């Protein structure tokens, strides 16, 4: 069981030992069939019983039906105290509250939580603390056997009756199935759930028949509009555009911005807008990117099609354009979560990342970043790839407004640490830019530049001047969440928020 002691000791301190975990060997002969049209039958056939671990992926975002449908059936079968290990959870999974109250689910391992489920867990709904892992951290934990998945329920836009599944066909194409592929390789029992059955063979196969035990046809795997969301639109917010422009200007001044460089950006507001300004600079200085990694969006596909990016490594497609581009564009590759960011394999792709642009809910004066708990101390976000990319990228830029409404982003100390300060190089806000003192080279580079460079302590003070003194959030000593760093150590604990009665 996870112990509650914080033993994180630096981004690359842990050297892994032991062997890779592997599921039992199992053979499926030529006469056996994998197909059934009843989800219930497939669950019974999987041999799922009390105390087991089940997993799902979050490529269907807030449009997912699979997790809720499967858990309703499991509850009806009377199966109890399961460990739920999805790659992440969305607000649509609120019905989980009922299953937790009824003891169907007694432990959750995830990248993040949202909505009412998150707030309830923050006040102690789950007896065992929820374990928060980054995308790379989850892949590591599965391959190391820290997570032993008994049954993986993997929804896919299309599949053939023998288990070859992908997101090329079907009416709700979600693009890359990067997170699902890890589960398919390491779960004892893999069930593919689709609403679009294709004649054999359904190639190319993101998930291969050789790992699949059962295939189920349901009438809907999710809400197509929410799964393949419309093209990501650039922000029009002048503050976000200002910050994005500054981030792009800063990147251009560093030695990392050279032909063949690689980068990754977040999908939200300012961080996404950076791609637009980087594009202008790349054209102007005829610089091409060797690869762009992570969540792929329409703007990145366009830059690829303009010849500005050689390769797109896609662990998750953020919009319909990116989803369709995987099969259309030759060098747009779907990658699995382990290849993306697992620190304990023979070389993940974040190791080769030059520049990453990330956001932050909170960042403190030691540059520690919190993307998991809100200003009221309640869980409301997800670790995602934040700590993975920040640890490995040669230049990590966090871009965030100094305060949102009256909630300061730069604070004395963050409620929780997802990414240690040592991974963060530069913070860009609309009222000043702070460089991590550990990066003397960058401090030297920007010494007499026209950028508004200031100390992060000054930024914290400015934020406090605007917003006023905050009443500290009171926590109980009950641990409701354990934040496991990508190397398996514990970097922080999430305490329950004291409910003022």
């Amino acid at each position, binding site marked *: 069981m996870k112990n509650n002691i914080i033993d994180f000791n630096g981004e690359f301190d842990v050297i892994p030992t032991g062997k890779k975990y592997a599921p039992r060997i199992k053979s499926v002969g030529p006469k056996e069939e994998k197909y059934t049209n009843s989800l219930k039958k497939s669950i019974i056939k999987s041999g799922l019983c009390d105390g087991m671990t089940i997993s799902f992926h979050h490529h269907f975002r807030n449009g997912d039906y699979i997790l809720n449908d499967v858990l309703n059936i499991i509850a009806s079968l009377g199966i109890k105290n399961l460990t739920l290990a999805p790659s992440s959870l969305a607000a649509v999974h609120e019905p989980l509250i009922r299953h937790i109250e009824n003891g169907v689910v007694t432990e959750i391992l995830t990248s993040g939580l949202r909505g009412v489920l998150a707030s309830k867990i923050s006040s102690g709904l789950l007896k065992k603390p929820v374990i928060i892992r980054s995308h790379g951290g989850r892949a590591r934990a599965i391959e190391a056997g820290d997570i032993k998945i008994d049954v993986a329920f993997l929804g896919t836009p299309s599949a053939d009756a023998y288990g070859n599944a992908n997101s090329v066909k079907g009416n709700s194409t979600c693009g890359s199935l990067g997170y699902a592929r890890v589960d398919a390789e390491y779960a004892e029992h893999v069930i593919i759930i689709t609403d679009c059955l294709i004649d054999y063979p359904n190639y190319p196969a993101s998930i291969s028949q050789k790992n699949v035990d059962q295939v189920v046809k349901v009438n809907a795997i999710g809400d197509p509009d929410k799964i393949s969301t419309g093209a990501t639109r650039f922000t029009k917010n002048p503050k976000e555009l200002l910050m994005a422009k500054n981030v792009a200007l800063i990147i251009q001044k560093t030695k990392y911005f050279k032909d063949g460089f690689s980068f990754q950006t977040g999908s939200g507001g300012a961080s996404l807008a950076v791609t637009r300004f980087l594009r202008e600079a790349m054209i102007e200085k005829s610089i091409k990117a060797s690869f762009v990694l992570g969540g792929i969006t329409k703007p990145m596909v366009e830059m690829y099609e303009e010849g500005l990016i050689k390769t797109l490594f896609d662990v998750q497609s953020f919009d319909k354009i990116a989803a369709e581009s995987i099969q259309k564009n030759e060098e747009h590759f779907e990658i699995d979560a382990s290849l993306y960011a697992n620190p304990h394999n023979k070389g993940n792709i974040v190791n080769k990342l030059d520049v990453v642009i990330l956001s932050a809910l909170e960042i403190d004066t030691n540059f520690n970043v919190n993307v998991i708990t809100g200003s009221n101390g309640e869980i409301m976000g997800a670790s995602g790839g934040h700590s993975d990319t920040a640890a490995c990228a040669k230049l990590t830029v966090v871009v965030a407004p100094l305060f949102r*409404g*009256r*909630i300061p982003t730069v604070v004395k100390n963050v409620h929780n640490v997802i990414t240690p300060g040592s991974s963060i190089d530069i913070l860009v806000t609309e009222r000043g830019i702070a460089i991590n003192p550990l990066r003397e080279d960058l401090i030297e580079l920007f010494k007499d530049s026209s950028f508004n460079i200031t100390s992060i302590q000054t930024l914290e003070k400015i934020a406090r001047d605007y917003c006023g003194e*905050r*009443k500290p*959030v009171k926590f109980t000593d009950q641990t409701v969440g354990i934040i496991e760093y990508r190397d398996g150590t514990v970097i922080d604990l999430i305490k329950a928020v004291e409910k003022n009665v």
Partner: protein
Amino acid sequence: MKINKEAIAGTLESSDIQITISKNHLIKNTIYLESPVKHLYEVAIKKVIMNTLEKHQITNANVKAIDQGALDCTIIARTQSAIYRATEKKEINWEAID
């Protein structure tokens, strides 16, 4: 200053605060506050509103404040506007608003 009618000032847009002032049947100022940052600034926000009321010699106001993350200077300005509208006073008491 005497409260003649119920008045409203400010908007419900983000970073603003909507202040409603009506006559309080008790001879004291009471404040009902709703705010997304109540857990951080409830005391601070109420203090600013109360201070602004007292500076205008208001003693029987029933204040309803619906905050959307407004900073102090916005809270002060909107409370002042609500006061002048509720008391139907045209001229500004310059010392009081300072």
